[in-house]
């Protein structure tokens, strides 16, 4: 679960220098191969660089449930979701940036970090993760997905308001 972003970036740059189509343009077959490998490298980087996507990939790799199969979120989370949805709806209809929205944004960001930290703990010994732990990790990742969508909505609102 832990990943050093600097060394990950370094790996991307090194890999790109090896497989990018720019350096394999002369031969059509080599170029086609470079396209495939470059696309794989870029996808791998994008998955690993994002903490939530990295955790999602790890759960799947360990044989845990996918988000389409296990859709539930942690129980205690659901009560909060109802409150947040109300606040979000209010912000969306008012179409104005307010201190309340800024506060909501902070709250959601903190919660996202907490949920990911919990996932981190659950998967601290990845190879020994039990099915229960994997299911719990999935539930928390579903919560992260919700939070990301909500945060995205808030960001869209912020940009629309020009703040």
């Amino acid at each position, binding site marked *: 679960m832990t990943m050093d972003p600097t060394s990950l970036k370094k790996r991307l740059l090194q890999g*790109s220098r090896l497989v*990018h*189509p*720019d350096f394999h*343009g002369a031969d059509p077959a080599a170029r086609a191969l470079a396209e*495939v490998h470059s*696309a794989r490298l870029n*996808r791998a980087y994008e998955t690993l660089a994002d903490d939530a996507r990295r955790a999602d990939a790890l759960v799947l790799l360990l044989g845990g449930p996918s988000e389409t199969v296990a859709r539930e979120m942690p129980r205690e989370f659901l009560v909060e979701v109802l409150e947040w949805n109300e606040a979000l709806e209010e912000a969306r209809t008012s179409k104005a940036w307010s201190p309340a929205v800024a506060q909501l944004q902070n709250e959601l960001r903190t919660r996202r970090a907490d949920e990911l930290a919990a996932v981190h703990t659950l998967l601290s010994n990845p190879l020994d993760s039990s099915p229960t732990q994997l299911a719990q990790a999935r539930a928390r990742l579903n919560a992260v997905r919700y939070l990301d969508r909500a945060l995205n909505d808030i960001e869209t609102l912020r*940009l629309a308001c*020009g703040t």
Partner: protein
Amino acid sequence: MGYIELNVLNQPVVPKQTGALGIDLGTTHSLAAIWKDGRPQVLRVEGESALVPSVVHFPREGAPIVGRAAREQAVVAPKDTLFSIKRFMGRGLKDVQQELALLPYAASETERGLIQLEVHGKKYTPEQLSALVLKKVHETASRALGETAPTSVVITVPAYFDDTQRQATRDAARLAGLEVLRIVNEPTAASLAYGLDQRDKGNVVVYDLGGGTFDVTALTIEEGVFRVLSTAGDTHLGGDDFDAALMDLAKREIAAQHGVEVLADAGFQQALRLACERCKIELSSAPRAEIHLMLPERRIAWRRELDRAEFETLTKSLVDRTLAACAQALSDAKLTTSAIDEVVLVGGSSRIPAVRARVEQYFGRKPHTELNPDEVVALGAAVQAHILVGGKRDVLLLDVTPLSLGIETMGGAVSKIIQRNSTVPCSATEGFTTYADNQTAIDFHIVQGERELATDCRSLGRFKLRGIPPMPAGMARVGVRFHIDADGVLTVSAKEETSGATASIDVQPMHGLTDAEVEGMLASSFEHAKDDFEARRAADLVIEIGTMVQAVEKNMNAARAGLDKESLLDLEDALAKAKQATQGRDAKALQKARDEFERTSLPLAALLMNNVAQKALMGRSLGEV
């Protein structure tokens, strides 16, 4: 003794060109650059501007005129002179209503939604018109180089161009007989030109306000890798819109004086457009300027002075829109203004003082303006061209796709398959299944854009997947692979997984030219290409022989004094023959005359060289040399 004369007599041996051109195909003007002597250089013909106006004029008879001469026809023959062609690339009629309202063209649409502009009853696609501009740029590059310029090219497009606009650009190049090595995004190209010597880590924002489009790109430079993090922009926002703001003001005031009838006149519109553009440009160097419109045949002599403050008020909302796009790009890159190390201004319209001031205020740092904003994109394209022909391996560009790619779902919503700002090349595979028993085909509608509904996004094409083996509903497993290549161009392939059958895909592009159409257009242009080529070669030879004749005539005294009798007679004879030859227009005969003349003038060249050397050494002891 002039150096040039010697040079003419001793034709320098120019090494064979194996490079590639970088071409900036712009809304208002285009230009080419090439990597030479270890750096990118703009190709310009001595004594001319490097910028070729992206304007095509169709005279009533004869070949189309492109560039500066075409632009001069704008006021005289507005309906036969096509501007801003780039705004129509890859577009349908309904996409360009805003543009057509400002331009005096007759436009129509083919049954596949391709826009066509009409002149003298003939219809031209934007691809054909852009091909004429590209040919002119290539020809100018050849003249600047003194030999045929490479036909392998890198062409730049606004980062915010969608797939159909990129395809249209490729098609235009094919029609011009050019091989496209890569389509590169303009701001990214600019960053290459700027950051070439800069190997340090850093986050850079490129703000590119061109003639017709606005782009902003955030990228990070690290160990020679230029990695684009995000791009945002507006393909309907550029210098033309600043002109239009002035035009609106002028039209209101002129209508009050002269009535509204004059406003509809095409000649008036073009004249006003040029007058407003001039005023805008003047305001970039002077605190006040005037819009000055003289149309004696319409009894209009109109002047209107305005200062920068008034111009800024008129155009404030335009600058606001560019800054909103900057905020979007930063947000997508997960950066704040304080994390930006450099801001680079590109595009002619970035010269507007108010634009510079507000960009500086927004980012809290002085933007870079060292390079000519009209040339920096072409320079960057030349760098990328040099990389692609294998000339440079220490620099690498990682660009992104500007718009999300998705599939229309049941009910008209969009299911996103590739997110915007994904690094290219990128692929994604999506699984599909059948909804009816024994269904053997599935229809797809591919769209590009950020909106929720498919109708609000750009339609890239409808795909029909055939050849699925008959089986119960929901049993088929069809994997459809979407791949965006390093040019940002999409390809789709599909496979039915339970049977292992590769399903075939029919692509019906909504826009753009089909391969058959491109072939057809190419074939018709080839019919004339050979004649065109011979004529151009003959014209070049006449000029070349003319220069040689001049040089020899200037030095006849020296020849009489220094050459042996036989050589002198030969030379006089060849001179007469060369003069005679320039009366003809047959390329083969001209080539022969040129070669013969060169051979016979060699003794004179040797003599002149000798004279120069003696003169240089005169009065010096050997030890001094």
